[in-house]
């Protein structure tokens, strides 16, 4: 199990903000992704129509998910593949381990997969004597570092190039220590040479899936490095690990959603590779695996259907929400404390690991709405974060002092006369605290505020009392 540190979100965030390397690395996210997405979206006239169409496709799938899943299974079997239903992460790990053991696998190459992170597949394989090898460059880097992805499409976005160089020097000890590693190309070439050996010697290849196509039993991945292709065609066995909501009815549906996916994610028109795989190698095929398995993971998703969180299952994991999130920009992905960071994680993680553990995440948002505005699937992320806050409030999971102060404030706000009196007293009191310079340097009940900012002092009396006097003076004039 990936260690869950979400309950320590505040402390995580503080250390992330004090981490100079991380802050340097995050500079990339703060603009590149955003500018590229904006250009890509503006460059396609039908982009907004495609978003609507993508939403409609996924909404339809979620209404009939059971039927499409059965159809998909039927088609996978027809093409010679196997489908394994995994209700939990442990089930999925067990099924993958079984396949690997039966094959006598020693090495497993892996394409980038967040579901594999969700079920902590690498730890499970390693604990059973099977070496997992990440083949996506970013994943490879963080595997060397013993870390987890900090972004769902750019897993090593928190790492600087200098750090990568140090990691390569430390781990690739069979190479001369004085070799030149100052350019990105040199790092890339070195990783590629090492991975090439791994591709050729792997017994099993594991990939995720961006889509599962029900009409044909096809799994689809989009990548930029081509590592996914080598992972799934070279080893004898290909295992696809995917969650149930990845289903789309037809290839046409898939190709529509693909058009918003890369544009929203990296600003590309298309990812460099869009790879479709259907079943194992057929007679006459030049390449492909002997066995083709699909592990279908639920892990709490089916219980989101029919709830206020159903729309979250439309997510296509493009990462646009985190790319545009000021909170993510400030703290990076690891601070969120589990697999999925940013706004989509703030909604999904409480569903998957429990709101008792992930309770901070939906609260740590200013509700600026930028995530929703760029989400290609129009997922109302702030609204769903608010739904989590409601559940926390109802279940008394939010801190008692916070709940108490909100209830107390609301009690007063429902009594206008009392409210007027308290507002007037507060305006006067804060005015006094403002002193000569009209600002408050330290305010015990709002120390979080005054630790970093001054509190501008009020003007002295409330608008309502000034308005009443103003109205009275007008009457007096008549």
């Amino acid at each position, binding site marked *: 199990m990936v260690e869950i540190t979400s309950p320590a979100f*505040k402390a995580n*965030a*503080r250390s992330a*903000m004090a981490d100079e390397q991380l802050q340097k690395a995050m500079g990339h996210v703060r603009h590149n992704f955003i500018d590229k997405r904006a250009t890509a979206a503006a460059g396609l006239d039908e982009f907004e129509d495609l978003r609507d169409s993508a939403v409609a496709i996924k909404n339809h799938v979620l209404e009939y998910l059971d039927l499409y899943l059965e159809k998909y299974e039927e088609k996978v079997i027809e093409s010679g593949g196997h489908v394994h239903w995994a209700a939990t992460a442990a089930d999925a790990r067990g099924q993958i381990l079984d396949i690997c053991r039966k094959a006598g696998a020693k090495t497993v190459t892996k394409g980038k997969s967040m579901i594999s992170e969700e079920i902590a597949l690498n730890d499970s394989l390693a604990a059973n004597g099977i070496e997992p090898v990440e083949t996506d460059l970013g994943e490879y880097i963080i595997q060397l570092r013993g870390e987890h992805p900090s972004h769902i499409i750019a897993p090593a976005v928190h790492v600087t190039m200098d750090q990568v160089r140090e990691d390569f020097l430390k781990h690739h000890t069979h190479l001369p220590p004085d070799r030149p590693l100052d350019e990105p190309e040199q790092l890339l070439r070195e990783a590629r040479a090492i991975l090439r050996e791994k591709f050729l010697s792997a017994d099993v290849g594991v990939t995720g899936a961006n889509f599962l196509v029900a009409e044909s039993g096809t799994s689809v991945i989009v990548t930029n490095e081509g590592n996914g292709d080598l992972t799934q065609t070279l080893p004898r066995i290909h295992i696809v690990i995917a969650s149930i909501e990845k289903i789309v009815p037809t290839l046409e549906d898939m190709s529509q959603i693909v058009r918003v996916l890369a544009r929203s994610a990296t600003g590309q028109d298309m990812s460099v590779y869009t790879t479709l795989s259907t079943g194992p190698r057929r007679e006459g095929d030049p390449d492909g695996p002997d066995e083709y398995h699909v592990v279908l993971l639920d892990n709490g998703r089916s219980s989101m259907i029919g709830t206020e969180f159903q729309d979250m299952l439309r997510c296509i994991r493009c990462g646009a929400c985190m790319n545009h999130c*000021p*909170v993510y*920009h*400030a*703290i990076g992905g690891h601070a969120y404390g589990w697999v999925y960071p940013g706004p989509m994680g703030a909604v999904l993680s409480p569903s998957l690991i429990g709101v008792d553990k992930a309770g901070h995440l939906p*609260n*740590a*948002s*200013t*509700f*600026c*709405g*930028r995530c*929703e*505005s760029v989400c290609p699937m129009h997922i109302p992320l702030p*609204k769903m974060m*608010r739904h989590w*806050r*409601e*559940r*926390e*409030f*109802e279940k008394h999971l*939010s801190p008692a002092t*916070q*709940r108490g102060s*909100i*209830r107390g*404030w*609301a009690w007063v*706000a*429902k009594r*206008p006369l009392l*409210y007027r009196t308290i*507002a007037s007293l*507060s*305006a006067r009191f*804060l005015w006094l605290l403002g002193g000569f*310079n*009209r*600002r408050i340097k330290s305010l015990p009940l709002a120390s*979080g*505020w005054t*630790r*970093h*900012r*001054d*509190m*501008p002092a*009020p*003007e002295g009396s*409330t*608008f*309502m009392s*000034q*308005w009443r006097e103003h109205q009275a003076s007008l009457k007096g004039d008549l």
Partner: protein
Amino acid sequence: MPKSISQKPRVALFVTCLVDLFRPSVGFASVKLLEDAGCDLEVPMSQTCCGQPAWNSGDREDTKDLAKAVIKNFEGYDYIVAPSGSCAGMLKKHYPEVFAGDAIWEERVEKFAEKVYELTSFLVDVLKVEKVDAIVKADITYHDSCAGLRELGIQEQPRKLVNSIKGVKLKEMKDSDVCCGFGGMFSVKYSDISNSIVTTKTENIEAASPHMLLAGDLGCLLNMAGKLRRQESSIEVRHVAEVLAGMVDNAPIGERASKSGRP
């Protein structure tokens, strides 16, 4: 819609709790702008708060109670106008969600929500105001508050009016549409993150080198002004309504007098 004898639209000012407490001059500026634009303006005296702090804290029951009070107080007017995109967004966009599925209130809240506007968008989009009479000599940068921008589409309206002020030069900052880190309770509950976000914001504000920072929401303004004051910045901070009304002789937010050096 009911019209008074003068055929002026009957407009109720939703003052907002922050303006009431911290910056009454924004309320008076709003009154001036609305009356100058030909409105028959009233300020319902039993108003308190729109309930957003409860709504964003997950307290639906209290939100409902507060929303009902607002609707009862204001639904009789032709229009309800607030000098805040956040509070107007609460009344216009969130109230219907608060009462979703409530057979008794659903229709009533819908009729109410249709009449709610943020101040600058009401002036430009409804009253078709093209310009204001104010004279303010200052270089100004404008921050787009999130709720106004993304819930209500307010972006061009305040700029159009600000640009019509004699003496004003609008200097856009980088990322004017990115959150300032306020987020209501967020700024206190997650103050360190909020601080990181507002620090980025004040860097962008300073880089535009204006005399004056404007925005349409007092929450964001208190946050940005609080940070600018802590950083000993000389940029003065005001609500856009004050400047549109030409009311810039009083002290800026968080200061005893202007130090911005505007001519």
